[in-house]
């Protein structure tokens, strides 16, 4: 056994060298990859390419398509309704991404300092919003936010009857109300991500900090936050992509209304493509949404990537990242 292991090591090393030079591929390995690749290409890559192509045409899906150059894209950026929809997305980024990350960090930071009783139960229950279908979430929140729902009942009971309203039906409150639902969906996930990150931090770091007389805030800023860099990054990516697509929740609560007060790009994509028969515009908007998502995710990854020399000066960065999102929105 020892001999074979030693021998196994050597070809390994030389194959690594070969990889850098001209490569010796295993063409038969493509048989293993082919089925997965086929599904991915036919049902994801081809449709994306098609969307890009359609976005340069005016087309109702029935009669012949007319090439129109970039005019669908000009439409996306100049049409007031589209710009309004994009601005709604930015507002939702605050509620769906920034707020849950801040709440999650706050709770996880508190929990990092003590032994939590019943942690398994807390974990399981806090994760519940993540497993429910968005349609179920929409049905239950429609009840809660309804004119005679539990929220208004509570407000009346504490003497705030004057501010009660149909929260999802009011021009002024519909968008923040949907934002609040998004915060509810995401904060438990963020908290659990950060908790699992905290579990892998060396406890002796905390002991040392406390011996040096560091208070809870100092401890959080100089030990907990920097160590959670990968988790913060992944939490932002998950929540941001959820915020930008976000069709299901809006479709099943307000359908973009009242008026256009909760319309977001994905609602227009659906309506233009399947109800108004403006296929070119729907595709251009979908392409813009995709590029926007990739750019924002790219920025987050760059901002929070692991610095090679975990130098102390890099510690403030993660603390600022959620804040940056806030300012944008």
């Amino acid at each position: 056994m020892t001999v074979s292991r030693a021998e196994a090591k050597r070809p390994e090393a030389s194959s690594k060298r070969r990889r850098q030079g001209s490569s010796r591929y295993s063409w038969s390995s493509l048989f293993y990859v082919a089925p997965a690749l086929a599904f991915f290409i036919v049902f994801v890559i081809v449709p994306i390419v098609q969307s890009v192509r359609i976005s340069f045409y005016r087309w109702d899906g029935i009669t012949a398509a007319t090439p129109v150059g970039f005019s669908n894209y000009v439409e996306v950026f100049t049409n007031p309704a589209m710009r309004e929809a994009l601005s709604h997305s930015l507002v939702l980024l605050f509620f769906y991404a920034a707020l849950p990350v801040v709440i999650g960090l706050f709770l996880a930071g508190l929990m990092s300092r003590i032994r939590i009783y019943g942690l398994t139960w807390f974990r399981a229950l806090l994760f519940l919003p993540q497993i429910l279908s968005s349609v179920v979430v929409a049905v239950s929140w429609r009840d809660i936010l309804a004119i005679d729902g539990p929220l208004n009942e509570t407000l009346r009971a504490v003497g705030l009857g004057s501010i009660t309203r149909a929260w999802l039906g009011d021009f002024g409150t519909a968008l923040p109300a949907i934002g609040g639902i998004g915060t509810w969906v995401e904060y438990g996930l963020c908290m659990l991500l950060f908790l699992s990150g905290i579990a892998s931090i060396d406890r002796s770091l905390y002991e040392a900090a406390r011996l040096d007389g560091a208070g809870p805030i100092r401890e959080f800023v100089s030990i907990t936050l920097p160590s959670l860099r990968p988790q913060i990054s992944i939490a932002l990516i998950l929540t941001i992509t959820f915020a930008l697509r976000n069709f299901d929740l809006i479709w099943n609560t307000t359908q973009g209304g009242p008026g256009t007060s909760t319309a977001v790009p994905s609602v227009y994509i659906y309506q233009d493509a399947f109800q108004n028969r403006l296929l070119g515009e729907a595709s251009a908007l979908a392409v813009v949404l995709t590029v926007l998502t990739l750019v924002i995710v790219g920025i987050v990854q760059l901002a929070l990537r692991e610095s090679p020399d975990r130098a102390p000066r890099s510690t403030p960065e993660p603390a600022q990242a959620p804040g940056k999102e806030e300012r944008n929105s």
Partner: protein
Amino acid sequence: MKVARSEVVITHTLLLIATAIAVFPFLSIVISSLRGSDSSGSLTFANYAEAWTRGGFGSALASSALVTTAVVAVTVAVACLAGYAMAHMRVPGVKIMLGAMLLGLVLPYEVTVLPLYQMLADWNLIDTYLALILPQIGLSVPLGVFWMRAFFASVPKELLEAARMDGASRFIIFRSVLMPIAGPAIATLVTILFLFTWNEFLLALILVPQNEAVQTAPLALSFFSGAARASDPNITAAAAVLVALPIVSAYVVLQRRLISGITEGAVK
């Protein structure tokens, strides 16, 4: 690690509040689903019977089960094969494939739905099970491949070398050495894919709009709650609980695996 007693109390109180908020919406529909139409306050299952027959949820839940099973089974099978090759063979173009799949992970799939609809319409598959199954396999492949590749890459090389020394072919190594130890990794992947597929809404709305027989549970609930919005909210609540029930009961059993899978796997 000495911490003031007051801090222990405050932290637990905040945690209890956060948990209560997380649980309240689902709890509130469970409660209103059991409420009778009269205001006597007695509990009843009549709303469930009503929702079940009026909303066709028997058929919807069966459709969801069929679609989810097919998507998860095929995705896991092709992801195991591809993940094995990408972890242990020199696949030509592997960097491009992984790059494209990374995009697939964060992509808003709104960008795919219109061409998907047209393609499946060309194939005469709109309003069939296949219209729901095939695209969701494609959309699940990136997650599955990354997941299985990460697992297979974590298997000690010595194990594969030893089998190779014994003259095992690449497929035999896959089938007899790797698959038997991949159980836990596959189980977590199955749980995550099951959750995503079961809850999928937009694709169902677009790809099976007319045929009630193949509509999945979330779509049926969306139509039912839209139509019944003016009528009894307790019946809508019962319908929502019916749709959530399979997921919630699976979650009770699998929550540990699911949470650690998502919170730790995501970072990988």
